[in-house]
């Protein structure tokens, strides 16, 4: 079982840490260097964590837990209008990034209003490409409990609903956070930061639950192992988009065109098998990307036999 951690420290002797990560069979998921400081997001076998911690301490850096690393989360508001954006949607997205998640912000085309609010099939399909979705539903209890729940009712990924009024529970969502409604300024008061923490905690719980479900029928390979192979592709190396390969809980998003590179991706070798045999490769709904869903061990081995 891989564990995702973040190393924060200086560049001095960083090669020693990188070698150690490679020796234990781990991967560097993301590397950000600013002058002499470096931040590494790494995936390592859980049993080798003490070794990495010891080396990090030796180099004067520190290891930070990033419970949401390796996930991509969508934060969704009713519209992109200034009534809903940028606060608090961007505040939530930004806060989740501190826990290692990659987040996107999305506004629905016709999400505003009470009886007129709606979500299209295309929007649902886009949202379902992510690991979890956070829906901001506003200040009116009557509106949230009667109409807005329909926005996320049929969505197949875990949903965290964030609303203003205090409610005990809300149907069809995996978690609920109350007390965050419309805002016209940044969430920077202590009670607002506590609410952001609460949202992050709920998302962590939802993702942990998803990971546990996957563990029951484990994936054939960890997504980070596929990432390593994908990164050798010329198209990925030439890709100028930020984070060309993004990890999901059960797969990856590669920001290269599906149609153009499908054949090449299908033929990539991971542990002696072709990628097309161990994963489902499909087109992404959002501009020129590819979604890879890794099959479970049972699916792959059953088929081979």
């Amino acid at each position, binding site marked *: 079982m891989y564990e995702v951690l973040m190393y924060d420290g200086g560049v001095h002797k960083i090669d020693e840490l990188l070698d150690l990560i490679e020796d234990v069979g781990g991967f560097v998921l993301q590397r950000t260097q600013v002058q002499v400081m470096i931040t590494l997001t790494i995936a390592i076998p859980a049993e080798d964590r003490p070794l990495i911690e010891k080396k990090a301490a030796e180099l004067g850096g520190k290891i930070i837990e990033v419970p949401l690393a390796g996930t991509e989360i969508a934060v969704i508001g*009713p*519209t992109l*209008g*200034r*009534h*809903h954006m940028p606060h608090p949607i961007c505040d939530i997205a930004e806060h989740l990034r501190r826990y290692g998640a990659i987040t996107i912000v999305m506004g629905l085309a016709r999400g*505003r*209003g*009470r*009886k*007129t*609010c709606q979500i299209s099939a295309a929007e649902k399909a886009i949202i379902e490409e992510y690991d979890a979705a956070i829906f901001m539903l*506003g*200040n*009116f*209890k*009557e*509106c949230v409990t009667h109409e807005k729940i329909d926005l996320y009712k049929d969505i197949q990924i875990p949903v965290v609903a964030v609303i*203003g*009024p*205090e409610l005990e529970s809300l149907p069809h969502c995996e978690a609920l956070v109350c007390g965050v*409604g*419309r*805002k*016209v*300024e940044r969430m920077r008061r202590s009670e607002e930061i506590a609410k952001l923490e609460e949202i992050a905690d709920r998302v962590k719980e939802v993702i942990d639950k998803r990971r546990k479900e996957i563990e029951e029928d484990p994936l054939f390979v960890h997504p980070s192992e596929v990432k390593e192979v994908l990164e050798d592709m010329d198209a990925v190396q030439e890709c100028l988009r930020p984070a060309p390969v993004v990890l999901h809980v059960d797969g990856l998003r590669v920001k290269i065109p599906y149609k153009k590179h499908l054949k090449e991706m299908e033929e990539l070798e991971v542990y002696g098998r072709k990628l097309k045999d161990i994963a489902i490769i499909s087109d992404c709904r959002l501009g020129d990307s590819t979604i890879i869903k890794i099959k479970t061990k049972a699916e792959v081995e059953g088929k081979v036999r």
Partner: protein
Amino acid sequence: MEFELEGTERYALESYQWLLERILMDMGISTLVEQVHLIIRPDQTLFIISMRIKQSGSKRPVYDIAEMESKEGGTFINIKDESYAPRLLSSLWRLYGRERVQQLTRLEIFVEDVPKEELSDMKLDPEEEVRSQLLDAMWRLLPEGLKLRNEYFNDNVMTIVATEHDMTVDFLAEAQKVHEKMIKGPEED
């Protein structure tokens, strides 16, 4: 600023009061509002907001804020109260066109072919700008989905009623009632 809240959901009312306070503070006009009446009934999809602005003095004549001097071919104006400069300039542009109004320096204006007497009679309305700012604040506050709107306004009270599907006669009557109550002011309630 005094708030009167009326509706079916406590949280919605309090949060919208807070939102309005922050919006007005952001725009730097919170001192101009005297009283606000909010009616929010999500079960009926009804939102009414009525605001009364403070009387910030009557219209000021131009001779009060500037010195004027007749010159050959027009009038020379030297503005004394700088806060009125943009309003005076835009009024002059509107009345005489940009070709005839020259801004020589920040506070000096020359108006071609207009006698001094005509300019002295001009009056500037300080509340015109305030009203447009308040309207902007109300539009920022109103929930985005409530697209059916009706406005009532007079010199110092503005009322907007908003709903989603059907603007009923009852909604309009209620808004009008609130509007009239706000015009009368607190002492006559």
